[in-house]
């Protein structure tokens, strides 16, 4: 079996990216392939935590896009990154409700109303950490019925109408199409989530990895991200 995933003679670049980047990075990957003939881009989409763990265990990745700072720090601290990580997108929490909004949620404070089935992320995972920050900033104490392991678990519970509301990222709502409705709330600005990316030194195609990072940071990349609902990182 070939050590470089994706093909035998053609060059392949492997990007480890947070699951939330699935749509945008897949699109950027297509574009990268057309501008680099003979190169294929392979993505490993998973939770940032899993990815960081895999990279520090020696996974053959050329670039790493993390959905939070902590996991990026794990990788850079391990001396696996070429240079500093670059912020390339931010993300903000929003309230996801079923399209007909059965619990009539209008604002963040409504989430604390009794009888509302609210699901959030567990504090241990990035979206959960952001949720805690918002709670602290607003002084609203949420009583979730579940603290999910991943933001996708929150979203899928709202999609299944099992929960009346969930706290997820804006981009999640956007990519979920019309299966859920997003209700933005101003307090979400208190907990901006930073997405950073870096090329890795130990990867088999480190140079191509850097080029992919560049693509993400380029105007084209930023447009795709903005279209998906990501925010621009503060300079």
């Amino acid at each position, binding site marked *: 079996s070939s050590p470089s995933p994706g093909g035998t003679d053609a060059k392949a670049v492997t990007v480890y990216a947070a699951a939330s980047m699935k749509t945008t990075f897949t699109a950027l990957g297509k574009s990268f392939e057309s501008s680099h003939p003979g190169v294929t881009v392979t993505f490993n989409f998973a939770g940032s*935590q899993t990815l960081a*763990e895999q990279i520090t265990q020696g996974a053959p990745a050329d670039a790493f896009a993390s959905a939070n700072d902590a996991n990026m720090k794990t990788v850079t601290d391990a001396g696996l990154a070429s240079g500093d990580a670059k912020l390339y997108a931010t993300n903000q929490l929003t309230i996801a409700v079923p399209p007909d909004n059965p619990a009539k949620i209008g604002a963040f404070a409504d989430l604390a109303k009794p009888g509302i*089935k609210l*699901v959030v992320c*567990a504090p*241990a*995972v990035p979206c959960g950490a952001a949720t805690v920050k918002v709670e602290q900033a607003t002084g609203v104490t949420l009583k*979730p*019925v*579940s*603290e*999910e*392991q991943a933001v996708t*678990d929150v979203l*899928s*519970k709202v999609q*299944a*109408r*099992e929960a009346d509301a969930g706290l997820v990222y804006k981009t999640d709502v956007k990519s979920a199409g019309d299966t859920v409705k997003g209700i933005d709330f101003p307090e979400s600005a208190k907990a901006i989530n930073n997405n950073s990316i870096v090329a890795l030194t130990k990867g088999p195609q480190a140079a191509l990895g850097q080029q992919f990072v560049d693509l993400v940071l380029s105007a084209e990349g930023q447009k795709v991200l903005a279209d998906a609902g990501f925010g621009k990182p503060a300079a």
Partner: protein
Amino acid sequence: MSTTEANPAPASRTGGRADYSGLPRWLYVPAAAGALFVLLPLVAMVLRMDWTRFGELITSESSVAALELSLRTSVSATLACLVLGVPLALALARRHFPGRDLVRSIVLLPLVLPPVVGGIALLYTFGRRGLLGGTLDVLGIPVAFTTTAVVIAQTFVALPFLVVSLEGTLRTVGQRYELVAATLGARPSTVLRRVTLPLLLPGLASATVLSFARALGEFGATVTFAGSLQGVTRTLPLEIYLQRVDDPDAAIALSLVLVGVAVVVMLVTNRISQRALTWA
């Protein structure tokens, strides 16, 4: 004058076979490789563990809550498996009905279904908008996000284990003793209670352990169907998954606890079922 009687005690007719194993020697190479293949990852985990923190890690509030919840739900799920699975195995082993093979295949499906998909399917069934959700809601039995949901998810994935191994045992035991009991005047329920179930005991013990183990380790269906809230739905595997983010050591410590519980349960059952086997 006397004629010697042949000894009436029916001795073993073919003698011992203690001195013949019949296995070619090269066979032990893959056998040992197989055992090592499973053992090494466990050893690796033990080696990675920071034992000085072990006690502290496994006694944290969230860990204890998760362990306690896991034991409680796994026992309940195992009971549910027994209540549903023993009759199912009996029907599959003892009745010939059309479509029996299909029913058996369907009962085995949770084995192949990725647990997350199983969780989705359970949501579609017992969730608020699910097939039965309306009915359950009207009856005032909320399922999603409750401990009940955890038990349902665990039962769903563990049931096939019980049914499969029990059906095999039932076919081996056969029906002769049940017939005898009936002609002695025992009605079917009595036969079940006083003959079938006692005779099934050794097989039942190991089948129960298999399903308990599977319930104890269940993750995907639980997280999808039941959610994850400390003390309510966050079982040990879910806690391990979460801890892994902050504190990999804690995750490993808890995994070792899980492994320990499982090993103890298996060894005890082994003992029990071997004792019971002496009268088989």
